[in-house]
């Protein structure tokens, strides 16, 4: 089993999602490019000490 397939199968199992065999094949095909895109977010300049754009007001009722 390829690394990508092993990873995808593991991720799906962890999430409790059960696609068909064909659907798993398509997800395995999609995995490398998707991860490459996500990994590139960690190289965007100026982000190292930036706050995430998620906030809330602790006074909320």
């Amino acid at each position: 089993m390829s690394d990508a397939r092993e990873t995808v199968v593991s991720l799906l199992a962890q999430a409790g999602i059960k696609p068909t065999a064909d659907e798993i094949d398509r997800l395995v095909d999609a995995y490398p490019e998707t991860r490459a895109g996500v990994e590139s977010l960690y190289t965007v300049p100026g982000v190292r000490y930036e706050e995430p754009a998620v906030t809330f007001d602790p006074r909320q009722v």
Partner: protein
Amino acid sequence: MSIPTTIASAAKALREGEVTATELAQASIARADEVDHLVGVYITRFDEQMLEAAAAVDADISAGKQIGPLAGIPLGIKDIITTTEAPTTGQSVVQDLSWGPAIGDAVVIRRLREAGGLISGKTTTMEFAMGMPDASKPFPICRNPWDLDRWAGGSSSGTGSGVSTGVFLGGLGTDTGGSIRFPSAYCGTTGLIGTLGRVPKSGCLPLGYSLDHIGPMARSAEDCAIMLNALAGRDESDVTALDVPTEDYTAGLTGDLTGITIGVDIHAGRPSADSVDPAVDGLLQDAIAVLKGRGANVVDVSVPLYDEGTLALTAIMAGERAAFHMPDAQSQLQNYTAGFRHALGVTTFFSAADYVQAQRVRRVIVKAVNNEVFAKVDLVLTPTTWTAATPLQPLMDEPWKPRLSINTRYWDLTGHPAIAVPMGFNAEGLPMSLQLSGRPFAEGTVLRAAHAFQRDTDFHRAVPPIAHS
């Protein structure tokens, strides 16, 4: 009797006694009878309720009572926004139909009714605002009214096709990555997202909690402005709504763009040449000439970190989508459409750290575009999409394949207001669209420029041949 084709002209005709609300509602129903089965505008129609509401408007007019700015105007509502007439389906057999009735009208629906609007029905979408059309599910396939073998776009599909064919004069869509603007582009209509937090989104099924917008879709920028007047403003039911004063969004619709600087970016997000319609560049240059003729100063700009913005939005939406759908994904995955099942599988590729990192990248991008671009220009002009409406069958056959050349996601990420405006037709007679984006809470400026463009062009008035009667 000639039925007006815009909200503004219908409102004027109503007040001058040239048409009644009942006649507007009857015309809406008649047009729906003609085209709905061809195009797939509605999931549920509210003909009887709309006629009752129209009769009430006519009674108020006869009694000399003051009526609201949308009085008597038939409107379509995307079926992920709850209304009292019927449960909200989300265009999915997975949807819990008890959700909507437990809420009643969403805030935006209440506001439209208070303005006198007639709710004509719930319009087609994509499954939970994202799943591609799937013929195996019991919902209409939404076809493009300009070419029935093409897609209307989504996910505000039926609202876009309904406005385009004149079934209703305006409607609501939602937009998380482009779902108001690119169906507007594909259908030849006008669609606006306000600043993130400008319009309350409570009472709407979520796709991206920090990305979702509700906004108006209509034939013109003027009509979108009239609708935004009714929709905008904080409501405490929406934790993401921002407490910023509203304004009269019709006040700036003078046609004059003197003092406005527009930055053009035709490179950001541009795909390879075989994915760009040959008409795009020429039509955009024609549009620039129109805007200059109205007094605008036009310069070149470069939207920063464009590709990174698209990636960040993908990661954010994956996490937010997964949180909402995970229980159903685990218990009834096969009840989702094929495209949404693939999307749910892809959400497992993203970690919690990825989500947080994407939100950090987001803040950097917001600062960059405000400091580097909107410090110098009032508006940014781009194509809304790089192609006209896509063929429908390939989307349905292989919904997991990315096929959309759209230019909309960046502004959902940054939260800036943006409008899609018809700018002409390609060689096949399909609508093409330009997009104007503005500073936060500068919806008035965005609408002003779009309206000025529409003063000198007729593209937004074009009606597809199947709707001519």
